[in-house]
């Protein structure tokens, strides 16, 4: 099963700034997508392919499945570009949301679940090679802080974040899965999110 084994290729830490476009660039790209400009498809993939693949792989834990899901995500984005509303967030954030939904939807099938393996958050100390493409130091810093904060969560807190973000469980579903009272799960979740929010707020301050 493909997990997060030691990297053999070049692994990058969060070239998320790749995914952040200025509003004007974003509008131009969207316009080209809506006109079905073939080059727009290539640009869309260049910008978001790696992010989408990473999220689908993280959730599906299977490289082949992640490739299929990535294909599905881009089709969805391509077909729904007309419905995208910038007021609802960054294009990158919208695409990540789609990727997460499609991947979680997929792994919720019994077959996929049987293939899954538990994978902890990757070690923050590894793979710190930065891409020359990362151009937004502030964003990188926020990303780094969030990543470190994830590693400061205790086991319970990390577990609820994993279950919510990567397995799509609501708090009551987590309570069932973990055999814990709902109130306990809520406490863990609240504490985890609080820590993460504070970390982001500190960078912003």
């Amino acid at each position, binding site marked *: 099963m493909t997990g*997060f084994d030691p990297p053999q290729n070049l692994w990058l830490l969060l070239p998320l700034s790749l995914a952040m476009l200025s509003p004007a660039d974003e509008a131009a790209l969207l316009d080209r997508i809506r006109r079905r400009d*073939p080059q727009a498809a290539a640009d869309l993939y260049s910008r978001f392919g790696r992010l989408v693949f990473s999220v689908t792989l993280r959730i599906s834990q299977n490289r082949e499945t992640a490739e299929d899901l990535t*294909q599905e995500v*881009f089709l969805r984005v391509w077909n729904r570009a007309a419905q995208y509303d910038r007021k609802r967030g960054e294009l990158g954030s919208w695409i990540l949301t789609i990727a997460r939904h499609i991947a979680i939807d997929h792994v919720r099938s019994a077959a996929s679940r049987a293939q899954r393996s538990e994978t902890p958050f990757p070690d923050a100390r590894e793979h710190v090679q930065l891409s020359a493409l990362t151009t937004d130091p502030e964003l990188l810093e926020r990303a780094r802080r969030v990543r470190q904060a994830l590693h400061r969560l205790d086991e319970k807190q990390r577990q609820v974040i994993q279950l919510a973000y990567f397995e799509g469980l609501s708090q009551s579903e987590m309570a069932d899965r973990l055999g814990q009272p709902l109130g306990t799960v809520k406490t863990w979740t609240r504490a985890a999110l609080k820590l*993460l929010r504070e970390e982001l707020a500190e960078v912003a301050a």
Partner: protein
Amino acid sequence: MTCEEIRELLEFHDLGLLEPDERRAVSEHLATGCETCARSLATARELNALVLTATDLPEPPASLRDRVLNTLSGSRRPQRSWMAWTGYAIAASLAVVGVWLGASLSQEERDLADARAALKQATISEQNLQQAIQLLRDPVTQLTAAGTGPAGVYYLNQKRGVLLIANNMEQLQPGRTYQMWILPKDQAPRPAGLFQPLGDGSAIHLFPSLVDLATVTAVAVTDEPASGSSAPTTTPFLVAKVGE
């Protein structure tokens, strides 16, 4: 709820994980135009994006780029064509007609993913696509196969309707369409939607509707005028018995 309580929920709201009552409360509050909470929502979205990508970002294989671009340009189907999947489905259904679909789908999850990708490329609306996927996923969906020349599989679900995946369909004459029919016991055939085959003779058609499977005896297809007919006017084919 106070703004503070709302802000506690915004990450999960963005993830679509709130319980219905919480979701309603957050949506209603955001709809009031509270600017502080709108800003917090933007921050929550950023946090979510950062958590989702707080992982090593492995390089996808170079071939994936080509697959995605080919799919988007519509120049060819996804690599593992849905016809292979249909072939499997037909073989499986001929072997065990009326088998409950859940098990075979579990084993063929990857093929299902291909079918889903192919469905997206077919002449089927996004809404119908979602409905088709739900129907395929539903463990109570039954399948029944039909035909030897034109061959197909019908997927039947009491609540979700009937999905037909077929191949070797003849191309229609201009001004003609294929029409699906549901044949209830002791009643006239019920029209179940119009569809056209793709250039390669394959076809996917969803009739999203409640279907009382207890009274259905068969499903079938006919060749009809482009506007469809209220009763079949040509010989039915792809006839599949239901419920025996």
